[in-house]
């Protein structure tokens, strides 16, 4: 089992290296001089140019530049935004908490709602209604959900603040907006998993032992249904990260999304690259965690890998 874990971590490291390299190549492929790309819309003075050349080793051979970039990235040094005159790590670090709050709240809401939907809508017609609702939610642009929620709950009834991140109440609508599509997909996956698990012999045995249908469902079938659900964890992270960019814009929240958009708009490449590498790192960590979670949920896998 330790070998399996080591392999997962090694392949995660390879993906990270590939992401960092791809980001670097993207920078090289950008039209124009690399120094111009790094400055973006920032102040273009000889001092700044000299600073960039020194920090990115642009006066050294290409191999050295690349290896040095990797070495710095591995140490967590993501470079410096010449536009904001601050280290990128600081810029991102400042904006990370609100985005994390949003992502965690949305994931919690989405997962709980999906579990409730999958377990409670077992009857035929309820299930049809729920499936249709899930299809509609999944096909709706998240920003539209956000705008509808805003116009109903903030403008019409004034229950929640319109924008900002001052209070917990301001977190409710963005988290619901971001969590709904997650719940939509996850509920479908869980429901399929439950259907399959309830057909298995162990479900019959459990029923024969006199367990109520609810107990069979929650105590026995759900554990099996969780396995395919864990598979979509990686996808879920992507939805959270990508969705957060748009949702933050809809609700005027500070966060990574605002930083990224501003960086894209101003051509602040160091920040854009850092966000991409950071997203890749999150993706790798979540997927590795998901693979390890299989072992936790399914004891059978533990036996075969050891």
């Amino acid at each position, binding site marked *: 089992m330790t070998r399996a874990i080591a392999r997962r971590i090694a392949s995660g490291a390879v993906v990270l290296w590939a992401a960092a390299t791809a980001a670097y190549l993207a920078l090289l492929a950008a039209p124009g001089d690399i120094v111009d*790309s790094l400055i973006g819309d920032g102040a273009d003075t000889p001092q700044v140019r000299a600073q960039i050349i020194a920090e990115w080793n642009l006066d050294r051979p290409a191999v050295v530049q690349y290896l040095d970039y990797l070495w710095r990235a591995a140490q967590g040094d993501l470079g410096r935004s010449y536009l904001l005159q601050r280290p990128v790590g600081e810029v991102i670090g400042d904006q990370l908490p609100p985005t994390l709050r949003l992502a965690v709240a949305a994931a919690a809401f989405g997962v709980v709602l999906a579990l409730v939907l999958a377990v409670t809508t077992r009857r035929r017609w309820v299930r049809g209604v729920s499936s249709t609702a899930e299809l509609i939610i999944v096909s709706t642009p998240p920003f539209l959900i956000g705008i509808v929620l805003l116009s109903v709950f903030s403008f019409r009834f004034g229950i929640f603040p319109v924008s900002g991140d001052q209070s917990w109440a301001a977190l409710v609508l963005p988290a619901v907006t971001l969590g709904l599509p997650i719940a939509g997909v996850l509920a479908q996956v869980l429901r399929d998993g439950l259907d399959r698990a309830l057909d298995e012999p162990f479900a019959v045995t459990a029923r024969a032992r006199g367990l109520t249908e609810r107990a069979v469902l929650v105590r026995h079938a759900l554990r099996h249904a969780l396995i395919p659900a864990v598979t979509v964890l990686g996808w879920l992270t992507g939805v959270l990260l990508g969705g957060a960019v748009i949702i933050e814009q809809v609700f005027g929240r500070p966060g990574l999304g605002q930083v990224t958009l501003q960086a894209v708009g101003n051509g602040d490449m160091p920040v854009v690259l850092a966000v991409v590498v950071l997203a*890749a790192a999150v993706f790798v960590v979540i997927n590795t965690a998901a693979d390890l979670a299989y072992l936790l949920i399914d004891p059978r896998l533990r036996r075969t890998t050891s």
Partner: protein
Amino acid sequence: MTLALPRSVARRLTRRRPRPGLAAAGLVLFLALAAVALPSLFAGDPLAADPLRVLQAPSAAHWFGTDQLGRDVFDRVVHGARHSLSIGVAATVIAVGAGIVLGLIAGLVRGVADEALSRGFDALAAFPLVLLALLFIAIAGTGTTSLIVAIGIATTPHHARVVRAQTLVVRQAPYVTHAVAFGVSRLRLVLRHVLPNVLGPIPVLAMIGLGEAVLIAAGLSFLGLGPQPPSPEWGAMLSEGRGYLHIAWWASVLPGAAVTATVISLTVIGRLLQNRFEGRPA
């Protein structure tokens, strides 16, 4: 020869259940295509501003109301179909084309190249589409072209993976080994024997992918990264209307509803075709 079934059984087997959802999806797609083909037939000038009729609620004269410049929202939504859908179609064409080429290469070459390509597809497919598109736009600059290419690249892995899987099956098929035995040239083998048999699932996949592309395109142009303001693109309209949400919900919600209706229709019909194709009951 067919088995003689009792008529009642035969009728039950062949009877089509009415499918209101499917009919609605077909209707929406038909309307969307009509709007793409002949927008001027259904709607007036999308850019005609009327300062005397600013932010009016939906009425008989203005079905979808008017926006902050007094432009008719219905006219803009109808004309927007061409903008939004053409971005989606162009991005899907890029994704399908690149997917076929890369998938074929991965499936035929095998070995290290296949491994590298497949890991690349995996990583690209799992990475947030929006961030990927943002990275591309940061490098190539904003504009409709980079929007299209960005979405195309970001959605390539879906198609590439399917083509690769199909290629792995087809290359084992007897007709391929026979063609090799007959000394057919490599290029001809790939183009005449492998490629046509690999393409089966692609149209359906492209249809579902189109829905996704329209959705991302609307999201990115909502962020201001697509067609710029006066253009009646759906996502851009939403973003303009966002500022007036407190007094005029229709200026942003109704263009958004157009995106939703189109995407749901594409998904419903795509899934139905997929089930047909795979022989599952819909």
